[in-house]
């Protein structure tokens, strides 16, 4: 554990309710210097709500948020960080260089325009008006605006949503270049692949709770599991005695369980001589993996288990 002042972001026990709905439930999160952290989750998992608290746009019901040693939204914190908001647009009729110069003036210690253009792959586009840029180029300009103040921390909310594969890769290169300069990055995404490609650590959010966190390899192992399903007269309790670490559930005539080591578990299952018919082993979507993690975390799903099939 490093010294406390190395924590650029320290969120502890953050809780927020919108009306009756729990938007954030006891979120704790920390980011150190030089670290790239991905906040991974589906739409509505609470990623943007968490970011809004970090930016001081929303006030927490309880818990604390500190950035760079200051409360969220404090000017001294703002001076040392850069932000890309989700779905933010840019003004028309302004050129790339004009927009960058304007944002550079906001910071006491801005980088050279040349360097920023270079990092954001915008060098050839300086005189272009913003409305003539492609989606990927606009995102990179927003990125350039986020890094122009030589920030110690950059927050990127869904930076690659709506980009095609090439534009996404280009954007990844920009984030990597930034991280290589030693800037801490917090990015949100709903692509496991993206979090895996960029982050030093991943925090998985589902329904406003942190359901998993760790290095990408661990998260991938947890989220990259398989669903094993078969028809059987055995009960979930029978299965529990065979595979103590799996929690099975019944769906009609079928039993199903989730595993990250299907080969080993199937071997044990066959050895136990249970009635097994119509066996399928299938990869699960990220969405199902989230649900799985959510259930492991003991969060009550708002949907009865039976309806998950339609999800």
């Amino acid at each position, binding site marked *: 554990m490093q010294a406390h002042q190395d924590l650029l972001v320290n969120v502890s026990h953050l809780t927020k309710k919108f009306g009756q709905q729990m938007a954030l439930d006891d979120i704790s999160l920390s980011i150190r210097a030089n670290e790239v952290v991905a906040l991974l989750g589906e739409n509505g998992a609470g990623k943007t709500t968490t970011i809004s608290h970090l930016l001081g*746009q929303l006030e927490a019901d309880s818990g604390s948020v500190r950035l760079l040693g200051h409360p969220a939204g404090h000017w001294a914190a703002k001076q040392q960080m850069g932000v890309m908001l989700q779905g933010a647009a840019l003004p028309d009729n*302004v050129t790339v260089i004009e927009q960058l110069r304007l944002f550079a003036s906001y910071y006491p210690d801005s980088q050279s325009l040349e360097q920023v253009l270079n990092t954001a792959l915008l060098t050839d586009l300086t005189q272009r008006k913003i409305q003539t840029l492609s989606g990927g180029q606009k995102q990179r300009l927003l990125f350039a*605006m986020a890094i122009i103040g030589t920030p110690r921390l950059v927050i990127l909310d869904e930076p690659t949503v709506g980009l095609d594969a090439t534009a996404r890769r280009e954007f990844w290169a920009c984030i990597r270049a930034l991280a290589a300069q030693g800037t801490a990055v917090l990015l949100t995404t709903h692509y496991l692949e993206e979090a895996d490609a960029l982050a030093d650590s991943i925090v998985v959010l589902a329904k406003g709770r942190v359901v998993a966190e760790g290095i990408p390899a661990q998260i991938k192992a947890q989220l990259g599991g398989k669903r094993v399903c078969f028809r059987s007269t055995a009960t979930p309790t029978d299965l529990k005695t065979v595979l103590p670490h799996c929690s099975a559930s019944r769906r009609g005539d079928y039993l199903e369980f989730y595993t990250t080591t299907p080969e080993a578990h199937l071997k044990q299952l066959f050895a136990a001589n249970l009635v097994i018919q119509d066996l399928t082993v299938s990869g699960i979507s990220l969405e199902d993996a989230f649900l799985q993690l959510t259930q492991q975390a003991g969060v009550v799903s708002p949907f009865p288990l039976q309806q998950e099939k339609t999800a």
Partner: protein
Amino acid sequence: MNISQPAPLSLARRWTILQLETKTELVKTFRTPAFVIPALLFPVMFYVFFGLLFNAIGGHPGNAAKYMMATYAVFGGIGPALFSFGADVASDKDKGILSLKLVSPMPVSSYFAARIFTAMLFALIIIMSLFTLGAVFGEVTMTHQQWFLTLVTVLSGTLPFCAMGLFIGLSVSAKAAPAIVNIVYLPMAFLSGLWVPIHLFPASLEMLANVFPAYHLAQLTLAIQGNDSGAPWYLHVAALVAYTLIFLGLSVKQFKRVDNRH
């Protein structure tokens, strides 16, 4: 890694930000001819038609041209204020441009000050065009002091309309804003006697004009040349200050309700 201690923005830096912000606003606006041309042309064109041509035909140039130069200056001056705040703030708010600026270290005052400067510069261009037309073609004669006071009054009189525009911009969507601004702007201009002198109105309409800030600004400007309807100048000033404060108060309330999470 570059570690610099955060420091509050110095006055010099705030001034730089304000300059750049204003420059960017101006550049953006002047690259939108569809806004610039009507905004500059309408007051000038109306003044030529009603203030100059009609009067020349009637055979008494001079006083009417002077009267209408004041009221069309008010008409031309409040338009950019209403649109710069009403339509442009609404668009910045909807696009998330405002949110991005608010989470940056930019002082929020520079954003609004830059808009005020932009609106005033527009007003200045319009007023100077009307002055030139009036002096050259309308045989308008006033003392230096009267010319100067007219200019300063109309320019500073745009402030209540900046506040009104701001409230509209923060309250409605970008799509609705230009229409709402026009619904406020055009009827108010007519009913405040900016197009047709207020004393030609029926008495009831002349009474009604008192509810419009544009009427008070017009009366204040007309008082400089002795063509006002007679109420003391400080009542008009008080009405304009009151309008400014009311709309600023409403705007602050609305500003807090703006959903920043774009």
